[in-house]
């Protein structure tokens, strides 16, 4: 598999580390009623039949966290962007 890092260019899989679902958002609330949201954030993951947005770290390259949109059926990579908005050239 190859990922086109927006900073480094297209690179081989061995340079990247997979983290997972990039669609979850860290809850802001620490109130007890936020428990479900925290469990969702920490443990529950979708496995969509089709495109999925995932966090990948370019750990052997520029150390940027990336959001990679990947087709879960074919491994086709549809889009790659910096996780930090407004990053890069």
């Amino acid at each position: 598999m190859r990922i086109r890092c927006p900073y480094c260019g297209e690179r081989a899989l061995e340079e990247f580390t997979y983290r997972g679902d990039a669609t979850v958002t860290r809850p802001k609330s620490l109130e007890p009623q936020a428990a479900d949201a925290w469990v969702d954030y920490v443990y529950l993951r979708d496995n969509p039949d089709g495109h999925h947005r995932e966090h990948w770290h370019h750990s052997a390259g520029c150390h940027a966290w990336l959001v990679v949109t990947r087709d879960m059926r074919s491994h086709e990579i549809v889009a790659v962007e910096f996780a930090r908005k407004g990053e890069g050239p």
Partner: protein
Amino acid sequence: MTGTSFQPRRLATGGLIDRTRTHSFAFDGETLAGHPGDTLASALLANGKRLVGRSFKYHRPRGILTAGSEEPNALVELRAGAHREPNTRATTIELYDGLDAASQNRWPSLKLDLLAANQLFAPIFGAGFYYKTFMWPASFWEKVYEPAIRRAAGLGRAATEPDPDHYEKANAFCDVFVIGAGASGLAAALAAARSGARVILCEEDFRLGGRLLAERSEIGGRPAIEWVKAAEAELEALPNCRIMERTSVVGVYDGGTYAALERVNDHVPVPPAHEPRQRLWRIVAKRAVLTAGAIERPIVFGDNDRPGIMLAGAVRTYLNRFGVAPGRRAVVFADNDDAFRTAVDLLAAGVEVAALVDARKGSSASARDAAEKANARYLTGAVIQRVRGGQSVRGVEIRDQGGKIELLDCDLVAMSGGWSPTVHLTTHLNGKPKWDESLGALVPGALPPGMSVAGAASGQFGLASCLASGQSAGAEAARACGFAPSVHALPAASAASDETTASTPLWQVADGKGKAFVDFQNDVTVSDVKLAAREGFRIPEHLKRYTTLGMATDQGKTANANGAAVLARVTGRYVGAVGTTTFRPPFTPVAIAAFAGHHRGQDFRPARLAPSHGWAEEQGAHFVETGPWLRALYYPWEGEEPQATVNREVANVRDRVGVCDVSTLGKIDVQGKDAGIFLDRVYANTFSTLPVGRARYGLMLREDGFVLDDGTTARLKDDHYFMTTTTANAVRVMQHLEFCQQCLWPELDVQMVSVTEQWAQFAVAGPRARDVLQGVVDPAHDLANAAFPHLAAGEVTVCGGTPARLFRLSFSGELAYEVAVPARFGEAMMRAILEAGAPYGIAPYGTEALGVLRIEKGHPAGSELNGQTTAHDLGLGKLVSAKKDFIGRFMAARPALTDPARPSLVGLSPVDRDDRLRAGAHLLPKDEEAIAKNDQGYVTSIAFSPSLGHWLGLGLLVNGPERHGEIVRAYDPVRGGDVAVEICPPCFIDPEGERLRV
């Protein structure tokens, strides 16, 4: 070697071999001769050697079936001693002078193989025999049955010594990757390379040309080989084209990535100095053109495995490419026109052709013409039902349309059941080949992204269509990469080679006699397939697992199609509906050494060396791998036992002073206006309030509330913190922090960079540590307790101006400092500390003593920070701030994670001081039975404490902190320990911490 040796079956002329030179080689100890350009198979045939090996299960005599990498039979052990390699295919081994090969899987000799008695027991060796025959008693399987089976059924012996050769890996990149350099591949490469695209052309053979080397074809009115040579010359002259011979493309991966094995020096006895034997390439291509050709199918009939029965195309290869007559009197048995022209080639080489046995009912003009040219009988609607002969073909039983049997003497059968496109590489990314009724074969279905297929691999068999489809695919691939290929007129191809395989496949001779093999390599016969089908294994994947059809080194390249056809017949289905097994990488076998490349032995994985490593080696230190690092384990004096060394090093720290290289800790500069806020959010405790010039122990949790890592972080400036992590977690913590920085809180002004490599850091610990430090730190810096107290930190200079960082931190519980200098001064710093410490009795200590010191002090480390423990479990609950949000805050507060009944950190002392403790032992209530229900925790770390004079341990125990003073069992069934231990606080030394504050 020069001079000629008699090669009885070598033709007087012809072939792409260098007759001016002779290679001498040995097979089973017999010295034989061949020529440069030969394969081992062609040289054996030239010498009249047809018996080459014994089969896997029945030890039947086997010869040479093919002339390529699909060979199932002619597997030999190549080379001797440490260089010995089993299961190499004689058909692909390039002959070299001094080649030494041996047949395999026979005992005591190839001709007299006593294990052939297995044939007598064929009924019990049928499909699934492993599963049925050796069922009882169960204990016999490992000790009796399996070893016996393994001895009898085998595929050669691997060398038992380390491989002395060097292997390596390499990367290559191109626009257009052409796989296979036959007619289509050369046409594709020419079209793409002429346009300026970067082209790589891979060919598994040691010559370009593919089938053109084996056929008497013409291109542009000239022998095809001349066109091949011209194409090769043109491609070689183009700087944007790379030709890789002896290179097999073995795998297709996502993103246009291909694996290819280059046999750099397999064609010489021993690789030249400094050169690898094989090189595993990763090739990344924008587009690929698969021109891998096709594989001819055998026909399934009685005793179709006898030496002397060959594929028709292979017979033509040996005649035309190698100038070898594989027999004296031949019968051609086929169901397609392509095969019958073999008769003409045989006659041209002076081989008598007895008959053309055409399985088709009707007469074929082309086949009849070939028979006339070859002065041979032409029998239509006829089949060979059985072969006569044991170690070699002596004749065939032919059954005509009316069922009449006729015996014909011959020593060579050229057979062909048609050709199957080599679709394997199209399926590696899950593409399913599809059945083509007109070809009676599977053709590529959905292709991997970026790949196209041309020539025979796509089911276009005629030479003219190979050239045309190759050129068109090459041009299209270049165009897709942004190049503008121009149209070149194609030379005319000879009509004779344009015969397509007009196939009405026979597959199998029904009602034959003898053993009819479907898979030669695995000794799978028609009756095995029938049995499997009867027992419910009706799809090819199941059939493969039950009968082994399609397994082993050839993965059924000549067997799968026939296997599917036989299965279709016995299950009454249409052959196109039966399907196929999945072809996975590698296409041909790849040695493990090639996958390892440079990374073996010392370089199995890279080793990180601490700055004082060279010095430690001089001291005779013993080293230990800790993560990627090699660290000094201990520094033995001459004649000293390891335990004595560790005891001495520990005692020296407690009584005097020691020094330890702690550079391997992860070190991170955290800078920016919001650095303090950021650290508050990643640590469970607070750092924004830490004054400049101070350090603090920090505990990091994962978002699920469990402990991730710990370490100390110092504030060097208002906007500059210096964090340390454990050695093991350095990379993980950095990645985690970058996630927090980039994904969670991008609004913060915080920058992080690893400075692990920059700083050589040394712990100086013991009552005399300050005295030692005063000898290296420049006098401008006051080290007095009031000026630089416990947990002080700052930037200083040492040894007359070298910039350094100094921290007053203690892992041992003694007065201690850590001093860091740029790593290139690391070794000199170690020497300077030792010199300054000499008057105070300083000694270096290694990680073993470091471990003892921290266990005595009750500090959790790797065994306790094991990913399953919480701050509460480690007795660090007080550190966890309730005033702020931080990673893990919410989830750590879950009741189950703070439940006092969770196993928590305790100290363990053996009741009998002579008892030894073992890490991993279970903790059980004193008088309870050793069953899982009573398991209350386990021992995490142990050490012999020279300070206390007995073993002690740390452990995690249910309700631990409430049970100090209780006696429990440390039960270790694996090593037979059962020791009474007393629960105590985890800190055994100076619990008030007075020593480190003096």
